[in-house]
């Protein structure tokens, strides 16, 4: 087994371990409120994978998380913490709704315009923090959070304007035209909102993988993220790379907005559902910033959501328990370094002490 596969397996083992421990703690919580953990987990599993329509739910919940997770993961590669996926998503979603109902174009072209709009507006929303970071050294965590509020309030405000608003009581935009909508996968289940956005997500994952692993741009972004002094030494315009990484990250987050509007809701509703962007941080973390890891992590979170809905309706256990499990997974993945130290170091120390006692150190490298 070469070292790379071994590394990936070790990484995977720790993520799986974190998930297992989280479920065990979840079981304790369930017992505590006098539920039956096996029943709950069984219901959860069937809610997520039990039927084609349930599985479609899992995929539907997972799709936007794939985008926001990938967005956060990409920025991480440049050493940037993009907390603004949420705002980038709002801004892009609103823009998509607007071009979706205002422009009259043939279907293929209209969808292309929708996607481009999402990329541009999401990227633009991230460009501002990117430039502030690169030119003035303002920390991106602060600026992206501020941009989130701007996006939230601005879209709320614009939704109420008569140009955009659907007449009536509900604060939402007019519905986008049929030509701008992503195809829904009704062959899986009649009522699903699962749409072709998930295919775009997979394509984006493949592209991101190639950019990061095989392209000069990805190399330079990685070098900048690991060691920006070495980047400067290596002839890399590291400030420029920060901006580019941030814009790409924002563009990917913008696609989540397109998927939600063009694929699921077909309009922008105010206030827009909160949390897809923030959940992306957890997804990126669990997916180890790897595009395919992000897809897997998004699927897990999608399954938890779909299963959680089932638990809520079929058992006496409230769905908050599922949220708790989800939170514990995040907690364990985040504190993984600590977990690793605890386990690996203890094993090693014991081994070395034994070797020392037997005067067997020659086998070890100093």
């Amino acid at each position: 087994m070469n070292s790379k596969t071994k590394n990936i397996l070790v990484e995977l083992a720790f993520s799986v371990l974190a998930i297992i421990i989280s479920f065990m703690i979840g079981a304790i919580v369930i017992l505590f409120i006098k539920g039956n953990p096996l029943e709950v987990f069984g219901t959860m599993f069937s809610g997520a994978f039990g039927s084609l329509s349930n599985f479609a739910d899992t995929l539907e919940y997972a799709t936007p998380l794939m985008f926001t997770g990938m967005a956060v993961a990409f920025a991480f590669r440049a050493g940037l913490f993009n907390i603004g996926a949420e705002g980038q998503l709002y801004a892009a979603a609103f823009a998509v709704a607007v071009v979706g109902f205002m422009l009259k174009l043939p279907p293929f072209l209209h969808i292309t315009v929708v996607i481009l709009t999402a990329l541009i507006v999401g990227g633009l929303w991230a460009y501002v923090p990117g430039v502030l970071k690169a030119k003035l050294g303002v920390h991106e965590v602060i600026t992206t959070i501020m941009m989130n509020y701007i996006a939230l309030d601005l879209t709320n405000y614009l939704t109420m304007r008569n140009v955009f608003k659907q007449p009536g009581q509900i604060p939402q935009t007019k519905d986008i035209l049929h030509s701008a909508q992503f195809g829904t996968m009704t062959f899986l289940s009649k009522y699903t909102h699962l749409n072709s956005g998930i295919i775009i997500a997979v394509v984006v994952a493949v592209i991101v993988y190639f950019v990061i692993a095989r392209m000069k741009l990805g190399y330079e972004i990685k070098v900048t993220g690991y060691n920006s002094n070495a980047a400067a030494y290596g002839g890399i315009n590291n400030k420029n790379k920060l901006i580019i990484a941030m814009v790409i990250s924002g563009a990917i987050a913008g696609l989540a907005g397109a998927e939600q509007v063009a694929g699921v809701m077909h309009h922008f509703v105010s206030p827009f559902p909160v949390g897809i962007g923030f959940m992306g941080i957890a997804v990126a973390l669990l997916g180890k910033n790897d595009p395919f890891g992000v897809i897997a992590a998004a699927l897990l979170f999608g399954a938890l959501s779909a299963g959680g809905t089932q638990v809520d309706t079929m058992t006496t256990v409230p769905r908050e328990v599922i949220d708790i499990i989800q939170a514990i997974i995040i907690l364990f993945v985040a504190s993984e370094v600590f977990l690793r130290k605890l386990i690996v170091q203890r094993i090693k120390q014991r081994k070395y002490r034994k070797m020392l006692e037997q005067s067997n150190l020659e086998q070890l490298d100093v």
Partner: protein
Amino acid sequence: MSKNILEMRNISKVFGDVVANKHINLSVSYGQIHAIVGENGAGKTTLMNILYGLYAPTTGDLIYKDEILQNMTPALAVKKGIGMVHQHFMLIPPLTVYENIILGAEPTIKKTGVLDKKRALEKIKEMSRKYSLDIDPLALVENLSVGEQQRVEILKVLYRSAELIILDEPTAVLTPQEVDKLFEILKLMRNDGKTIILITHKLKEVLAISGEITVIRRGEVITSLETKELNKTKAPENELANYMVGRPVLLRVKKTEAKPGNDVMRLKNLTVNDNRGIKKVDNVSFNVASGEIVGIAGVDGNGQTELIEAMTGLRPPIEGELSINGKNMTFTTSREFFDAGAAHIPEDRHKHGLILEMQNNDNFILGKQWLSPYQTAGFLNYRAINKMSDELIKNYDIRPDTYKVKARNLSGGNQQKLIVAREMTRQPKFLIASQPTRGVDIGAIEFIHKKIVAARDGGCGVLLVSAELSEILSLSDRILIMFDGKIVKEFVNKGITEKEIGVYMMGSGA
């Protein structure tokens, strides 16, 4: 009573994955200067930190004055009369010399508890006189030179009545004159009955001053011997280096007369500020010709770092002109510097030279990622990159011999070899080698020196910056001395001694 003030028996220490000390036995006799020598990373400092109670040993016993000391702490060490002068000084710059010395052991007037300044000053003055540690106890530490600060550290230890004094690489930051002065002080202390442990990797100094030597290699004691026995051999320095490295080494690289050609680098009126806006390089001009090595000597911090950063496009200068191979530099990016046919071995390999978290193959293309065949149309060609990596790893004997490890997992010497390999394969017309062997083992030093001389012989102009005078003297054809941002003196390297250079390094003699 045993003749040994200190015995360390069967000491081992494991950090995470690394065995820093294994089964070390060390005996130090009363009233001796005992040198512990070994390469960087051999485990010298770890051993001394165990003695001083900063680390607990994984196994082994500490016997000091016939008493087994368990659960050693620095406080206990001080109480027992063990003192340590660290490589990096632990002084508080805005306080005066005497305040620094008495800190933590302040004498007070019995009845009132008020600080007894008079008594403190008297005691310090007396010690200063006794060991000729000239220093004004009322001076502020921030106004002292490095050599003087070291004397304050020694006084601090003496003030606490230390009998066993550990000095960790005390000469690393000193000029040759300051080293002589330090050795006089150490001899006075020894004659007064103090025992001194000297940690160093400089062979000449060991032979000059120590009475006993313990050589450590890869965490193990290789040999313990008396210096006078060693000095009887034909080439004691080589003998000692042999013990340290485990094979015969060439201490001074062989080279022929330089054949300088046309200028490959011209620098005119360069002025550079540091991040705080303080002028660090002051109107410096000089040229480097092809086929010669120009060495810049000077104590660290006299503007060498900023000079090189400006020349390589990493720090915009206030003013100045630089041309490399006839191309005028705009001081904007490092890429411009490389594209002009130049190469750069940076002074800090962790800060600039490597991406520790990336594999060796990714490190081999740093600063080359735009060059064919490594890159075409924005895509990296890993087949070509890996092939080149394999070749360089083989030709430069980099271990472990695979590009699949992260640079972090290489030893300092191998990390440096990686950088040297990368830069030399640019086939530069002009090479900047900044502290090229800092923190590198003797074997790798020899290797790197040979490569630099070979580059010169191939017609490359080399600018060498080093804080190690012996390195400057053994490699350079011309020597420039930098002090306080200025080039204060130029020598042709013929029959120059370290002493002569040292005078200019301290800013006098100009």
